[in-house]
């Protein structure tokens, strides 16, 4: 249909000889599918991503989520969809800009254009209804949007999404996502048997007829693309060396929870954490576990604490506003040394903030959210795979240290899909069954080991161990005691456990180099984008490295030595910090990123930060820019 689609804005830097005249081979490709809310773009993208991952491609997906349930259609605010970045190798982040776009109307496309999400020369497969629509207002909106986007070299290809679907659907709006999947299957040369398998999985709760209709629509897309599109993209993938699984971060948290031996998930619905309970709820009963949806966030954590107190392995899952509500209860768990895992899938704040969008703004709340000294363990997964494994780590630490462990995930990980090696399950990941044997003579509820603060739990049901657990200051026997030395000692014992834990941690390893001009430090889901940015900067000759911190409390060991090998250290985070060049902002009054704040306080080093709160994952290109300007800045640090 269009000869020039051969160089359709794809990353062809590593282009090799194409297998046929029209196929472009590249090491990676980023595609976005954008639609009005409710048109199924995400389902299309999820199937595309899963099938690509199954055939060995590296994949990272990010959902584009409108803030409203049913925003007015054909408006920029209605944009709903998904970005999928494919690679020949492992993909760790969503990249910079999409080179191929499937857009069901020009208004949702416009929103992506305005956010700078599209490559300068992106190829856009756009619905052909609107340019010649019978409603003049629609035609005018189309023309205005085309004007606005006119400055770019986008290549538009008109596609009759709804027109083609009419052959199968009474309401073609509802079928075009599968038609679009067919286009992608053809363009990227997907194995259609795997595509059908995924369609069957997605519609497993629907009738056979629904499945067949969706397959028919997909196949219609495949043949339309075969006949009409001279656009083939090949992202070669070596067959994976080991068995892989593909899931999103919230699925990985749910699976990890089961793998860790969790028995009770007590929660209250909150975006973007809720789907952890959906994934669990579907299967947990078969594992002898339950998802308890409590009446509110406070009750959710209360039930988890009550169950954990009896020896059940319990956790709660929430997001920022819920973490705030749970605060007093978390202090109770700290004070009573009741093991508890709290998963916080962070979103934008403060207050209701950006409920569906990513931010890393709960770090300090997790660390210091409780009035009074309430030492807790805080750790942050940085990949989908870590979402799985961190639950096992968190459960073990919570039980062995009798402490609260907060797992900080975020909206980017929650819905991001990435393949990772299939975990080799291990019975040792599970907690041993509760010990209900009679307690030894003289055993006390808090027989603190003076050096480590550790003590053995006594559980209800153990004869001879009767005592009252209390949130009041207490002595070793759990007797209420306000004496100065007793309170001092209790605080010391609860705190010392963190120092003990730190002694068991390995020092982190920088990515890129052991020393240099600049170390970029990050935590959580930004890891992939930061490391990619550092790789790009290093390929341009810049002496920069990246360091990801999994443990935020306690901090991993040897940070001061590692930081000392770099002339400057800068954190990169998705949370707010003052622009140092803004009016009134000085070195002294500048409010810095949360990890930056923490590292400065803990290490007494003048660490800088570059942070943003765009409500979307950071793009490697933007981080490269921050690295370059930091290095260009003559001042130290």
């Amino acid at each position, binding site marked *: 249909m269009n000869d020039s689609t051969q160089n359709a804005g794809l990353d062809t830097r590593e282009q090799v000889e194409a297998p046929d005249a029209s196929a472009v081979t590249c090491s990676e490709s980023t595609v976005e599918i954008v639609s009005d809310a409710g048109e199924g773009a995400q389902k299309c993208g999820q199937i595309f991503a899963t099938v690509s991952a*199954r055939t*060995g491609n590296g994949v990272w997906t990010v959902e584009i989520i409108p803030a409203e349930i049913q925003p007015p259609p054909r408006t920029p605010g209605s944009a709903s969809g998904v970005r999928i970045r494919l690679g020949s190798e492992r993909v760790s982040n969503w990249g910079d800009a999409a080179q191929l776009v499937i857009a069901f109307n020009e208004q949702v496309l416009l929103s992506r254009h305005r956010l700078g999400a599209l490559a300068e020369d992106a190829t856009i497969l756009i619905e052909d209804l609107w340019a010649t629509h019978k409603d003049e207002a629609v035609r005018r909106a189309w023309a205005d949007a085309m004007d606005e986007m006119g400055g770019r070299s986008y290549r538009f290809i008109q596609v009759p999404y709804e027109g083609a679907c009419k052959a199968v659907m009474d309401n073609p709006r509802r079928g075009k996502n599968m038609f679009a999947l067919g286009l992608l299957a053809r363009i990227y040369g997907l194995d259609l048997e795997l595509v059908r398998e995924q369609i069957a*999985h997605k519609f497993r709760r629907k009738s056979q007829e629904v499945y067949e209709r969706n397959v028919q629509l997909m196949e219609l897309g495949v043949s339309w693309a075969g006949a009409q599109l001279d656009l083939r993209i090949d992202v070669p993938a070596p067959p994976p060396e080991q*068995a*892989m*699984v*593909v*899931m999103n971060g919230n*699925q990985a948290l749910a*699976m990890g929870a*089961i*793998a860790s*031996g969790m*028995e*009770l998930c007590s929660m209250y619905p909150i975006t973007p954490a809720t789907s952890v309970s959906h994934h669990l709820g579907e299967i947990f*009963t078969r*594992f*002898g*576990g*339950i998802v308890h949806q409590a*009446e509110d966030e*406070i*009750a959710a*954590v*209360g*039930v*988890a*604490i*009550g*169950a954990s*107190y*009896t*020896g*059940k392995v319990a956790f709660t899952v929430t997001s920022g506003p819920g973490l705030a509500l749970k605060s007093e*209860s978390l202090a*109770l768990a700290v004070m*009573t040394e009741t093991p508890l895992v709290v998963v916080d899938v962070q979103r934008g704040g403060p207050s209701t903030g950006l409920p569906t969008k990513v931010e890393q703004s709960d770090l300090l709340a997790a660390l210091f959210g409780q009035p009074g000294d309430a030492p807790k363990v805080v750790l942050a997964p940085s990949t989908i795979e870590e979402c799985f494994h961190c639950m096992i780590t968190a459960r073990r630490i919570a039980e062995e240290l009798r402490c609260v462990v907060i797992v900080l995930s975020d909206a980017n990980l929650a819905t991001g899909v990435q393949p990772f090696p*299939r*975990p080799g*399950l291990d*019975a040792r990941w*599970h907690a041993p*069954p*509760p*010990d*209900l*044997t009679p307690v030894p003579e003289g055993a006390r509820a808090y027989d603190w080991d003076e050096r480590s603060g550790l003590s053995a739990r006594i559980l*209800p*049901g*153990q*004869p001879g*161990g*009767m*005592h*009252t*657990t*209390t*949130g*009041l200051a207490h002595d070793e026997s759990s007797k*209420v005691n306000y004496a100065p030395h007793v309170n001092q000692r209790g605080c010391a014992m609860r705190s010392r456990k963190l120092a003990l834990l730190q002694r068991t941690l390995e020092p982190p390893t920088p990515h890129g180099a052991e020393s240099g001009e600049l170390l970029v430090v990050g935590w959580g889901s930004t890891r992939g984008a930061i490391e990619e940015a550092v790789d790009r900067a290093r390929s341009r000759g810049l002496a920069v490295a990246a360091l990801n911190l999994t443990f935020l409390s306690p901090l991993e060991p040897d940070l001061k030595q590692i930081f000392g090998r770099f002339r400057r250290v800068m954190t990169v985070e998705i949370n707010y910090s003052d622009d140092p060049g803004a009016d009134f902002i000085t070195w002294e009054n500048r409010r810095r990123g949360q990890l930056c704040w923490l590292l400065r306080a803990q290490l007494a080093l003048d660490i800088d930060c570059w942070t943003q709160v765009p409500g979307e994952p950071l793009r490697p290109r933007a981080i490269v820019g921050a690295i370059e300007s930091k290095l260009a800045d003559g001042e130290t640090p």
Partner: protein
Amino acid sequence: MSESPCSLLGCGQDDERRLEMEDYESGLPRWCSGCGDHAVLGAVERLLVSEQLPRERTVFVSGIGCSGRFPHYVNTYGFHGIHGRALPIATGVKLGRSDLNVFAVMGDGDCCSIGAGHWIHAIRYNVDMVALLLDNNVYGLTKNQTSPTTPQGWKTNTQPEGSYLPPLNPLSATLGVTNASFVAQSCDWVPGHLYQTLRAAQRHRGFSFVRVLQRCPVFTPAIFDSAARKPAETQLLVHERGVRDPEVESIYTNQVLHDPSDLGQARRLAEESGVVRIGLFYCDPSLPQYDKTRHVPHRTTDEKLALLESELDRYVA
């Protein structure tokens, strides 16, 4: 949740010998002399003895306030939590271990004010436990503030001109919640009735809500004086399926025959009137219990791992 792990391990057996009152006592209660909490503690200890509840398999959960200290004075397991949250914690305890006998002890601030949301939902969950509302119509521990059950016009430090609102009626509130299964009221001045009420509550399978009218000797010392001194002002709800105590019935002759399965009449009797009504207002043992509904079979680690392998198959790339 799994059944009691005790049965799996063959341990956690009850004491062989009969337990006496002193076996259930722990420490010297530090409530003011004349506090209604002493009466409740006495009735509870009598109940523990008469039912021979195993100490290691009984848990008292409390919130904050004078009543919050209750678990410290009973030689069982106890969890003295935070203000208003006794019910979620107690719910967790029962969901965690169905073999435990669970009591939640709350004051009127705990249950009817800061924890009111949990109260409504705990009634609806109908998890098997005894919930005691020790209602002295005032915040005592924090020195005389208005509570939701403080009588209108009653002067406190926070409302020195007198409480502005009519008091909340905990019985009506409880009886208004779907799935309420056991609602009773007793008082600190009729200990025999209090004991019999607790006994009925403990034997009921489900959420047994017992409001205990009691005085605070410092801030509401005479609030129930009239009813306590004149038996005619305390009206007994009597029925063969209700709370029975012949001795009490011989003294308190102002009686009303009330079938505890009659929810309509229970609601009418719960309304404010000139007399204090004590007895079993409502009981329906057939209502669904959340802890039973959510019961799941125990799975061994090996079973779980095998199941998880097949779940992971769904995600295989």
